């Protein structure tokens, strides 16, 4: 399965996804997906960005679909779409993801 790269931006803590070159996006839709055999290179991009003090805590995320990227882990869907409480729009977005046939916890 493909992988994408995520981290929190040092300056403001925002969840960001590696898109291309030096560009990290706040939108998971922009994340670059690579096949499993390129994960090490992807992780190295993250370590470089940490070294440059642009992001912290980078890691590769396995995704079940790529456009848009979809993780089977609820934690990752909450990171990309926000808390499932209160804000009803966001709540709907995550629930929508959960009901996808690709299989979330309920799938």
């Amino acid at each position, binding site marked *: 399965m493909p992988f994408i790269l995520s981290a929190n931006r040092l300056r403001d*803590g*925002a969840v960001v996804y590696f898109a291309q070159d030096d560009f990290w996006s706040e939108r998971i839709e922009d994340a670059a997906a690579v096949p499993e055999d390129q994960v090490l290179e992807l992780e190295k991009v993250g370590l470089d960005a940490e070294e440059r003090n642009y992001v912290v805590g980078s890691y590769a995320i396995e995704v079940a679909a790529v456009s848009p990227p979809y993780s089977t882990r*609820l934690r990752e869907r909450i*990171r990309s779409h926000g808390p499932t*409480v*209160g804000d009803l729009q966001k709540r709907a977005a995550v629930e929508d993801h959960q009901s996808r046939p690709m299989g979330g916890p309920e799938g």
Partner: protein
Amino acid sequence: MYVYDSLDKTLLNQRVAEFRDQVKRRLDGDLTEDQFKPLRLMNGLYLQLHAYMLRVAIPYGTLSSDQMRKLAYIAKTYDRGYGHFTTRQNIQFNWIELSTAPDLLYDLSEVDLHAIQTSGNCIRNVTADPYAGAAADELDDPRIWSEVIRQWSTLHPEFSFLPRKFKIAVTGSKADRAAIKFHDIGLKIVRNNEGVLGFAVYVGGGQGRTPIVAPLIKSFLPAQDLLRYLDAVLRVYNRHGRRDNIYKARIKILVDSMGADSFAAEVAAEFDRLDPELLSVRDEDVSRLRDMFAQPFLRPDPDASSSLEDLVKKSPRLGLWFKSNTHPHKTHGYSIVTISLKPIGGIPGDATAEQMFAVADLADRFSLGEIRVTYTQNLILPHVRQADLFVLWQELERLNLATPNVGLASDIIACPGLDYCSLANARSIPISQRISDRFADLNAQHDVGPLDIRISGCINACGHHHAGHIGILGVDKKGEERYQLTLGGQGNGESEVGKIVGPGFDEDGIVDAVETVVSTYLTLRTKGEEFSQTLARTGQGPFKERLYDNR
């Protein structure tokens, strides 16, 4: 309330300046994340799922109206318009940026608030009885002693890099409203046979992976020796506490492995080596603090009780509110009012900036400008004239802050869980929202009676699930959220660790399970018997049957 003098202010200003410099060095790359992390944590700044989270200390749960206004301002200016009151008398802001955090801390310092030692392996914000200074059953005001501890523990040179975090709680009342036996040190104010004021000292309580009710280590410690004794406890812990395993590093593990008696003996030996002069709490300091915390005179109101009866007749909902959300004050004709931050289906402990501004105004109008914060995630107006209750209730209703459910099924304690917290295994808030919705009928809640439901999103137990009558723990089972159910915990007054009932449930299942537990209680209870009493009488057996039999 405690008033900062120029020394408190100097220290706080220097702290803000120091942190500003540390943040700059981090952003410039002069500090690595590994080096910076403990420094930012000691300033209450975490990196969570979505952003930085700042935890602001509310010293021993006391806030002035001006301080509340500043928190509202912070929520509006630096966050998304709300804050989250936690299970340890703190407030957390969820959407903070590192680059502006120093400005935020500067703004807080203008009203003597800070985030010092709200995280990290140091002595944390001291917690105390939220009814301090207003409760009828109080021996002495715990805030006086909490302030003594605050000063002693702030930027302590020797005890800022302990094996693990360290939490102290103080109560001055017979009824323990601060859950002191679930703390690293719990202090209960007592008097000995000669009438001397002092403390019963409990050491080594805690929740988390290994919940332990703290044993009594010293039955009477004269008040003036407080700091000398704390110093001895902390040194023994700093020296011998485990540093090889984060799950065994709390003082409860040390006390447990040494045995309470030999731990007490080692502390006593260390205590004897200490210079009594150096750490003695002097009478003049205590009386200075006592003056600061003394409440202005409240004129007793002899007609209060009759007007109260009329009041309750005005509306049934007001009657319910009076019953669950007010508590007798030590002065006749006054009440301690709890502001529920648990609207039906709401997020436990969350308050919007508008609500915080409004509460500050209500505190000015009705409670001498004082507000308290409880570890059960509600707010309190400690000194309200009963003659003002009706007007206050109307105002609170308008703000959605008068849900008559304090101590009842929908007064749920919940940690942030997987919606915010980077350590979580499962979500807490949505579970509490669904349970709250399930029990939406407030008359029915009053009929069920006192019920304490608590939810944690992982074994760190920030939601105090071990100590709830009904405790829920979120776990991760092969990437799925599962919820373990425990019954029989006690966190108010008594301290008891609940026991797991059986296999866990999924999200829908746990909400049903809580309802099953409550309906089982209703069939089992004898007249006047509360949930915890029924459970103690019958044991878990009948509950288990109903929960698991028809599976």
